[in-house]
């Protein structure tokens, strides 16, 4: 297998890791105003306070890896998605500082709680919009983006924006079902139930809309005999949704979270099926955008040593803060 494919795999891994880990803490930010001020909000916040920073680092890994492994893609995608990217960054500023500031300033805690929610919502929505804008195609000329600064905006990208908001909110609700108790947990379960259906509807709508965007997507999914394989994805989606609801009804703590993640996994798999082997859908392949061999090898050495170590100590840090978080902290 050539290094470019391996690097596409590593970037894909970083994106999955990001969605798995930062999705739920952004989701908690989105759901935050629905929780009672005081005990419930503090508990929700505390369930993610020790890990959010590490979670967000995967976002830096994704974009840093893109620059290193596929510099051309980085150089085209970021100007093309200029407005959503800036919005995401500013959203992350608000929500990131809110973790500290809300404790530092009890008089303005309400304000920082709002900043936490607004920032989380904007960052998530912007990520969804960016994904939609990428899927619908961006104008490329030579080695540069050649569209205007509003090209990202479309009904489709707004749909993907809301889709991701619902998706992350679902992960957040499932996380709270896992990590909290009492009325907050019951509230989270209720939300998870509603959000699961909403997400399924969104996945359906976005999937159908995607088929109309580029001939390649259509071919990939519907041409025979490939359709025999690709049809497994929607079937699996329905199966996963069934298991998700079954666990939720059986009041399991952790399992619904992992079924929700599986739903995200299927979406990312579908995304991969649609765009492979392009890094900019229908425009630039991973090989066209790839960094030279020497850059790939040098980074691969670092990544093969460091990623397992990172996964290990990240797992350790989650293990340290395992179990239910009460309103007086983890116990």
């Amino acid at each position, binding site marked *: 297998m050539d290094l470019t494919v391996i690097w596409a795999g590593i970037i894909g891994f970083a994106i999955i890791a990001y969605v798995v880990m930062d999705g739920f803490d952004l989701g908690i930010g989105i759901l935050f105003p629905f929780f009672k001020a005081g005990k419930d909000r503090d508990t929700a916040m505390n369930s993610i*306070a020790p890990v959010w920073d590490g979670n967000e680092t995967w976002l*830096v890994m994704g974009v840093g*890896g893109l620059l290193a492994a596929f510099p051309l893609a980085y150089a085209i995608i970021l100007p093309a998605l*200029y407005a959503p990217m800036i919005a995401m960054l500013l959203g992350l500023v608000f929500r*990131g500082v809110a973790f500290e500031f809300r404790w*530092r300033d009890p008089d303005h805690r309400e304000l920082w709680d709002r900043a936490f929610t607004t920032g989380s919502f904007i960052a998530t929505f912007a990520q969804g919009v960016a994904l939609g804008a990428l899927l619908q195609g961006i104008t490329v000329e030579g080695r540069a983006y050649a569209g205007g600064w509003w090209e990202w905006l479309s009904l489709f990208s707004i749909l993907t924006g809301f889709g991701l908001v619902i998706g992350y909110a679902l992960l957040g609700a499932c996380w709270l079902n896992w990590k909290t108790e009492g009325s907050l947990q019951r509230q989270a379960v209720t939300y998870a139930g509603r959000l699961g259906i909403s997400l399924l509807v969104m996945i359906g709508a976005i999937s159908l809309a995607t088929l109309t965007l580029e001939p390649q997507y259509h071919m990939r999914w519907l041409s025979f005999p490939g359709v025999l394989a690709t049809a497994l994805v929607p079937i699996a989606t329905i199966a996963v949704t069934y298991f998700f609801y079954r666990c939720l009804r059986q009041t399991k703590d952790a399992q619904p979270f992992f079924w929700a993640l599986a739903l995200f996994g299927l979406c990312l798999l579908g995304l991969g099926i649609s765009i492979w082997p392009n890094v900019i859908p229908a425009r630039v392949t991973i090989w066209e955008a790839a960094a030279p061999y020497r850059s790939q090898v040098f980074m691969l050495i*670092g990544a093969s040593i460091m*990623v397992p170590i990172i996964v290990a100590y990240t797992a350790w840090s989650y293990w340290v*803060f395992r179990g239910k978080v009460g309103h007086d902290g*983890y116990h």
Partner: protein
Amino acid sequence: MIEQEWAIILARMQFAFTVSFHFLFPAFSIGLASFLAVLEGLWLKTGKGVYANLYRYWLKIFAVVFAMGVVSGIVMSYQFGTNWSVFSDKAGPVIGPLMAYEVLTAFFLEAGFLGVMLFGINKVGRKLHFVATLAVAVGTFISAFWILSVNSWMQTPVGYEIAANGQFVPGDSWLTIIFNPSFPYRLIHTLLAAYLTTAFAVGGVGAWHLLKDKANPGARKMFSMAMWMAAIVAPLQVVAGDFHGINTLEHQPAKVMAMEGHYQSHPDGAPLILFGVPNSKDRTVDYAIEIPKLSSLILKHDLNAPLDGLDTIPDANEPPVGIVFWSFRIMVGLGMAMVGIGLWSLAARARKKLYDWPWLHRAALAMGPSGFIAVLAGWVTTEVGRQPFTIYGVLRTVDSASPLDAPAVAFSLLAFVVVYFAVFGMGIWYLLRLMKKPPEAHEAPPSDAPIRSAGITPAPQVLSGDGVPGDARSGEIV
């Protein structure tokens, strides 16, 4: 074309603004993380409560600084692409891997252990907690290593080839790229600057509390530790800065000419211009106060050594003289003042009056923010001095920017300015509020956040906000 020029000017303003704001935080957290590691180490070794109290006191401040550093830092990792996409495409194969190494070896390490450092002592025990503190401190150092390697490569690019598609691609050896000619000097100069920044911030806080109560043991300890750092590190920094300057003269002479205000060549010994007003139109420094031949002595270690001036540099390659000239003087002036404070503190210490000289404390208080100003001035000197290039001598700034419409850049710049001043302004105010509070004998945990006092503080107390969070286990740090 005019609009394109505006877009580039706005993009430069945006980068200068976001990176300057960002750097304030790591400049502090690099030093603070090491300071915390020393405090916790001393506490583990001696068991003295004053170290544990100081650790808790500064950990609260560190948490706020670190959060601001993280969120402003994420912005930087996207700025290269959003605003400097041509640069990113061309330089990505060389600088991209170095930045990826920064993420892999530093960012994850800091972020992964920060949670344990802030919240985990009751869960992992003292020794493992100390390991977490060390991991964060080492992470800040590793981060500085990689990003300064990237910056230095942009200043003194070596070890690359130009590919057919116009990209800079790595040559045979990554070590040549990583340890490019200006890197060791810049790394040491910047790390010492971060330590000095922290030392003077800590010293300023200590001085403030000594002025109010010179018996406060926490204030005495932090002031004494900060003044040792000032006395030892400030002179080292002068030496490191001199080496860095000589290295710059070798590789980026135009930058040094601008720093010195040398429009003209001096074939037999160049003067050191202490002050003056650079006049780029007439190519002279007005109202100059100068010491003959001293510049040659400093840069060449020879009074009569000839020094070229900007007259030897094509106009198109000349950096803006006024900014570089002034920022350099601000940095050096503050550096000298730091050395002065260090010496003054030694004199006071020798007479056993370190805690008794209010004028020393007032001076140290006034110098509290000096490190931040000096660090920014230093970065302005080196970055503006690199102009008009992004990669010195080979890629021009005007050829590096993204193909963006000027209004898009203007709006984002405005958004950054508003958000940064509002959010980080509040953050800095919170920091000052934390610093205003004297260190107490039973310093509270890093915040009233329930989680951080897991198992110690009764929840209702915390929630009502009027509890005295716990020293039920006063031996514990958190």
